[in-house]
């Protein structure tokens, strides 16, 4: 076999092996999207009940809760950036990081707010480290399958930073930058402000005349709070923030898998294309070899004929 042909065959084999890997990763990612979506759906009843309870307590609590009221002059904001632990997911992490940069530019330039970064995922940690940006806290190892415990750890750190006084590096605002999973084809990086919280007080004020209530919604009765509305709200709000972090992590995980699936699909297709081109070149090389062999044989036979006739 000619040297040229051997080289082509070897390259085809190697591209084929790569294609098998990318194909497998594509299939894995695609099954994990479904799993992440199921996780989101499974936590929905909890979210609904929690949100209702929070809005109930918020509308009945007397004091202004620090997690709900906007500070007059916010000085520092915590920005939680949710990126991937691994690459091979196209522009997934890059898009989130670009959004985070845009947000911090906005905060610093327009509102004079300092930004301290909290990062989930190795890609984000690497990005900020490389640029010499300080990271207040980082978590790695669960970007592709977050659990509630992970979210709780993140939320606790964020709340701790919020409750610290300004002089010790406390923050007045908490924002999350993550990728919202709309569907398998569309995921967009978004910014979600979790503190100060915006709670819709959907409960009709106590003692309001029935006529002011909207006709389709039954008037919510006066609730008893145990121990008190303020204490219940105190206990509920951290849970609610944990849940917000949890749902952002889940949405980010689903988006990561979707991005990886797309990237790997493209890689598989490119490999196929490459194999097609290489096969054609290999065939050409094989043909050329055969043609050359034939002309060598014919040339040899001709020479023999000439020699025997000449004698």
């Amino acid at each position, binding site marked *: 076999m000619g040297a040229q042909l051997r080289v082509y065959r070897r390259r085809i084999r190697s591209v084929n092996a790569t294609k098998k890997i990318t194909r497998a990763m594509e299939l894995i990612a695609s099954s994990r999207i479904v799993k992440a979506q199921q996780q989101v759906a499974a936590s929905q*009843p909890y979210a609904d009940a929690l949100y209702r309870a929070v809005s*109930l307590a918020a509308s009945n609590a007397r004091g202004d809760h620090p997690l709900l009221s906007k500070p007059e002059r916010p000085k520092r904001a915590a920005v939680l950036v949710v990126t991937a632990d691994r690459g091979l997911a196209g522009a997934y992490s890059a898009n989130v990081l670009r959004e985070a940069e845009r947000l911090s530019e906005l905060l610093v330039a327009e509102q004079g707010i300092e930004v301290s970064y909290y990062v989930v995922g190795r890609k984000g940690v690497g990005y900020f480290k490389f640029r010499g940006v300080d990271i207040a806290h980082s978590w790695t190892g669960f970007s592709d399958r977050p659990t*509630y415990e992970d979210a709780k750890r993140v939320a606790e750190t964020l709340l701790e930073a919020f409750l610290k006084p300004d002089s010790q590096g406390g923050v007045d605002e908490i924002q999350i930058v993550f990728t919202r999973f709309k569907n398998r084809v569309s995921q967009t990086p978004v910014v979600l402000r979790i503190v100060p919280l915006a709670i819709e007080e959907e409960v009709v004020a106590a003692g309001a005349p029935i006529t002011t209530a909207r006709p389709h919604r039954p008037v919510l*009765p006066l609730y*008893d709070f*145990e121990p008190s509305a303020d204490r*219940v709200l105190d206990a509920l709000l951290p849970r609610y923030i944990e849940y917000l972090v949890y749902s952002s992590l889940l949405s980010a995980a689903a988006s990561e898998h979707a991005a990886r699936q797309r990237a790997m699909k493209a890689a598989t297709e490119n490999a196929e294309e490459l194999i097609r081109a290489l096969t054609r070149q290999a065939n050409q090389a094989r043909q050329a070899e055969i043609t050359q062999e034939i002309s060598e044989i014919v040339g040899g036979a001709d020479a023999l004929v000439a020699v025997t006739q000449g004698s």
Partner: protein
Amino acid sequence: MPLTVEMVSTTQKVWAGEASTVVLRTLDGEIGILPGHSPLLAILGDGPVLVRATDGSEVTARVNGGFVTVDSDNVIILGEEVTTSS
């Protein structure tokens, strides 16, 4: 009219069904919820939640970091972790 009871944790709906009584412990002490209970939103304390279902069975649940809301015979128990044993 029986109570409609739902127990939800962060990861799933743990139990749902109709019950005649729910006994649980709030921060202030143990309370029993019967149909017609006044609207309530309470923090759960330490202690099991006992649900007597209308089909006669009893469900006991351990709730970690939980709350209970009662509103026109709908009882919702939500907790970070909810484990049941009947």
